């Protein structure tokens, strides 16, 4: 065993108390093994990693336990000695590549720092080593990149550089804290491949911290599930994906949206992770557990070995939950595809790039460059694409929050582009938006009642005097208690805030809701609650959704129609079944295959996509996708492909299909 963590307890000082964020976790990692710590936010995963590196924030305290790497007790080392270990014997990769590199130092300086400190390399020898490292992490043209600054690199490249820095000291243990969470799926696949390859080459131990079951299935050898500061289940990859034992693990799996669960209600975990200050005495999951027994509330369960190498901390002896059939959304409305609620044709949004004293326009960012789509009443159109492809801009341009450069947006026959003042306000009753970040989308200084009533007041959606009643009805509809009216947003969790945002949008009874990644900031179990709510509301009210997302699982579960965007244009659109099961565009195929699936059998025939999305300020000539396309030919470099109909409802823009 290379790393042995025994009964590690970490806390944060709050006043005179120390609140335990990690309460007695033990695990081991051997050489060449990847151990994944899995759990929702606030479970103490990152605190564990910081504790191992002894990089806890100022308020953090190591309360007890031991961490030994190759027999050396890390917690007993002096800080000066510990510095010799960090970067040399153990290294760390952080979640956000944009902030983990120093913006005013060149890449070379930042790698060189580690080489000089730990290996005593300098000058030409160090430079040679740096080039070697950059090559290992798959950076093309390392000689040039070495003297560049972080802002000149893309997100994926920054993360590669971060990995190169971590590897520079040739560590035995690599701690990766959500290394791909901030990246797009295609780039995520590249980084995961890279990490897996490097680990095999060097025989490193790796502690992978993630909330994504797909990443776990792709990377981990063994998995530890954390809940509220405790490990609740430790299993090998095979056991974990075939027979998850702990009710929490099972619930995590059940909460995942998937194509097979279409039309059914997703399983959710009621309630939320208990706060550090109010940990229950017995099993910490008892309050949310479907299998809860009286003993769970009294005694914290002991470790129990279910099969060799598969340990669970649970009183419940059963294996799988009695597969209670979750209720279906029986009212999958009769969808009239004939009528069209919203018709967008050739929508363009170009942002001018200005330079110089006189602010002359020197170019344009082609954020949205000719998008056409239609949405029928009561249906969901998913707009899918990687970050920077312009999907959010499309959503905002539909609502006229960003004025479109050209094109037309017609809602039930009425042209929206160019509307102003009173007439635009009248139209806004029919269109509303739900935003990505539930923390930024509610004004912290207003009460929930005021927030929800804002639209009612501004658009006169309810007769005067009936607003309070309307607000209460809305709260009930989205599943919040009545007393929320007088409370402030900070008193609610992320999922609850997103419910409030949905209630606010519904207050004016819109026919179309633009949902801009409404679940991407939420944990899996909470995401399931929100998806259920959206589905239920669609069944009850017949609202149409434009669902903007990068998450294919959500698309599979929710969407009727799918449009895939790349660099400001739609490259493929059609019915969800058609696009997802029979993707024709190489980009769609690559996207779909890059999504890590939370199953053992995933990952065959993966299409590796090189590079990253180019800048929308200077899109490639011809087909935008040709520099990354495995099937590109000469004609792709010259001409943008025409729209080719594959079936009555399925269309692709690709020369290869045509």
């Amino acid at each position, binding site marked *: 065993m290379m790393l042995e963590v025994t009964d590690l307890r970490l806390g944060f000082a709050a006043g005179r108390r120390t609140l335990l964020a990690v309460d007695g976790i033990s695990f081991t990692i051997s050489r060449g093994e990847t151990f994944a710590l899995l759990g929702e936010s606030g479970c103490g995963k990152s605190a564990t990693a910081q504790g191992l590196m002894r990089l806890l924030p100022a308020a953090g305290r190591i309360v007890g336990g031991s961490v030994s790497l190759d027999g050396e007790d890390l917690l007993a080392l002096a800080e000066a000695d510990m510095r010799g270990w960090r970067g040399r014997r153990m290294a760390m990769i952080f979640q956000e590549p944009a902030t983990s590199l120093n913006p005013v130092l060149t890449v070379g300086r930042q790698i060189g720092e580690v080489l000089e400190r730990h290996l005593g390399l300098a000058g030409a020898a160090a430079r040679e080593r740096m080039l070697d490292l950059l090559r290992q992490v798959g950076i093309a043209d390392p000689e040039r990149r070495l003297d560049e600054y972080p802002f000149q690199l893309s997100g994926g490249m920054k993360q590669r550089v971060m990995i190169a820095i971590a590897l520079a000291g040739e560590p035995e243990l690599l701690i990766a804290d959500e290394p791909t969470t901030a990246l797009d799926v295609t780039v995520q696949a590249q980084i995961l491949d890279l990490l897996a390859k490097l680990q095999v080459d060097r025989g490193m131990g790796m502690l992978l911290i993630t909330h994504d079951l797909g990443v776990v299935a792709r990377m981990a050898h063994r998995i530890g599930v954390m809940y509220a500061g405790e490990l609740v289940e430790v299993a090998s990859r095979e056991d974990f994906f075939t027979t998850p034992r702990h009710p929490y693990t099972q619930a995590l799996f059940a909460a995942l949206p998937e194509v097979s669960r279409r039309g059914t209600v997703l399983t959710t975990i009621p309630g939320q992770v208990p706060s550090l200050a109010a940990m229950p005495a017995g099993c910490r999951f008892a309050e949310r557990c479907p299998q809860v027994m009286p003993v769970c509330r009294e005694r914290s369960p002991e470790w129990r070995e279910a099969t060799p190498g598969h340990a669970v901390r649970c009183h419940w002896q059963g294996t799988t939950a009695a597969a209670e059939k979750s209720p279906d959304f029986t009212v999958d409305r009769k969808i009239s595809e004939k009528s069209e609620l919203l018709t967008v044709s050739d929508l363009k949004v170009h942002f001018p790039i200005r330079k110089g004293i006189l602010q002359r326009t020197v170019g344009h960012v082609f954020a949205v460059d000719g998008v056409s789509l239609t949405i029928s009443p009561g249906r969901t159109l998913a707009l899918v694409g990687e970050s920077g492809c312009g999907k959010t801009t499309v959503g*905002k341009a539909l*609502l006229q*929050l960003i004025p479109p450069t050209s094109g037309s947006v017609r809602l039930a026959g009425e042209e929206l582009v160019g509307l102003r003042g009173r007439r*635009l*306000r009248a139209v*806004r009753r029919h*269109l*509303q*938006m739900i*935003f*990505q*970040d539930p923390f*930024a*989308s*509610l*004004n*912290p*200084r*207003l009460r929930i009642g005021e*927030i929800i009533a*804002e*639209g009612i007041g*501004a*658009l006169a959606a309810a007769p005067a005097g009936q607003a309070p009643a309307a607000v209460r009805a809305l709260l009930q509809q989205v599943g919040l208690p009545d007393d929320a009216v007088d409370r*402030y947003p*900070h008193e609610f969790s992320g999922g609850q805030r997103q419910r409030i*945002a949905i209630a*606010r*949008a519904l207050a*004016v009874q819109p026919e179309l809701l633009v949902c801009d990644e409404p679940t991407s900031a939420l944990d899996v179990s909470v995401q399931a609650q929100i998806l259920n709510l959206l589905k239920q509301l669609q069944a009850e009210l017949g609202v149409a959704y434009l669902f903007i997302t990068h998450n294919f699982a959500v698309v599979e579960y929710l969407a009727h129609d799918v449009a895939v965007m790349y660099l400001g244009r739609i490259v493929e659109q059609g019915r969800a079944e058609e696009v997802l099961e029979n993707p024709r565009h190489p980009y769609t195929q690559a996207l779909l295959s890059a999504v890590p699936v939370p199953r053992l059998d995933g990952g065959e025939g993966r299409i590796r996509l090189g590079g990253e999305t180019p800048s929308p300020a200077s899109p490639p000539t011809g087909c935008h996708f040709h520099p990354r396309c495995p099937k590109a030919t000469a004609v792709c470099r010259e001409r943008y492909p025409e729209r080719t109909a594959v079936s009555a409802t399925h269309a692709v823009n690709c020369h290869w299909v045509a």
Partner: protein
Amino acid sequence: MMGFQIVVLWSDVLVWLLLASGIGVGVLIARSPPLLAAWRRVGASRAGMASATVLLAFLCVGLLDSLHYRVALDGKPGDKTQYAIEVLSVLDALVGPLRTENEKTYSAPFATHLYAKETVDRPGLGTVREFPRLKFGGAHLDDPATLADDVGVTAFRSVALVTLGWLALAGVVALRCGGWRAVWRGETAFAWNAVLATLAVILLVLVPLFALAGQYHVFGTDKVGQDVLYQIFKSVRTALIIGLVTTLVMLPVAVLLGIVAGYFRGWVDDLIQYLYTVLNSIPGVLLIAAAVLMMQVVIDSHPEWFATAAERADLRLLALCFILGITSWTGLCRLLRGETLKLRELEYIQAAQAFGVSNWRIILRHILPNLMHIVIIALVMDFSGLVLAEAVLSYVGIGVDPTMTSFGTMINNARMELGREPVVWWSLVAAFSAMFILVLAANLFADAVRDAFDPRVA
């Protein structure tokens, strides 16, 4: 009972209006839980509460000095009552002898004799050059050698009195806040221990000073024999008015222009940015000097506007506040513009726009409340800067009216005497210490406010 006529100076009106609006804002804050929570954090900060206690003491002096009146002159009954030309304040009435007991010229703190030799006619001895006894300072002593005993006894008596009074006060606080130990260990939600400790220090210094001030010039006298302690008291009001009224002038301008520039962008933003960049690039002292001199000419050419010299000085003070305000809004404006630029991209603003909420309503409901913490921090921070600016301007000679006492004029007057041998140090030291304490308290309070309103903590 002597008759008197209440005199309402413009600055008095502003001071009391400010106090009223301060109380009004306090009531509003009490109704808004997030703001109340932030102010509770200020209340829990020991440094913050200690400095607030000091500030409150200064504020009391300033407020007492902002109630003005003119005393009726003795006249024949039946005549129309004539009022004295001198405008007095409640503070003047309270400190009574300090104002009237003027010596001939300089005298050191606790002196019984003048600081300069004079030629005196002594019956039988002819003319002698000696340090004459002061008219008031230590006049009750038969033998100046017993000075130390007399001062000691008076000081001891007042210290004893203070101790008793303070213990009574502390007892009341302890009773109300759950026991003496809780208060002393800082376990109360409000930092009572800091307040009590500061109060003890303030009382221990001030009460003995007052007790002695009746018989001695505790801080000495200045060139024309005026008591320095009295001048310090009068300067407090000037400093407070400069600090408070100026912010009142600049605040609406800064908030309005800052938000408008940040929210509307485009040419409005360009215009406002050019405006404050231009204003900022003119040397401040030069601009203020030009404005003050122009105003001086206007005031001097219209003597009929003013019934008393106090009114003239008052108008000049207000004009100075106004000029300082006009030149100092740029910093806050720039800060607010930047913050508004950030806020307007937030999703709740976009949600409001999607509802068709009007721009001004968005500014009032969504932007202004989320900027308030910056405004409050800037206000408290600017206060100390302005008090110092007044001192500098008065020192240069373009500050307040020469007849008005301020820290700046005090320092300016004392400046010449530093070159004198033996040196006259007390005037400068007293003004310096008083200003130092005021500005330090304001700065510490500003720090506490900033910490409490820091969004990372909230």
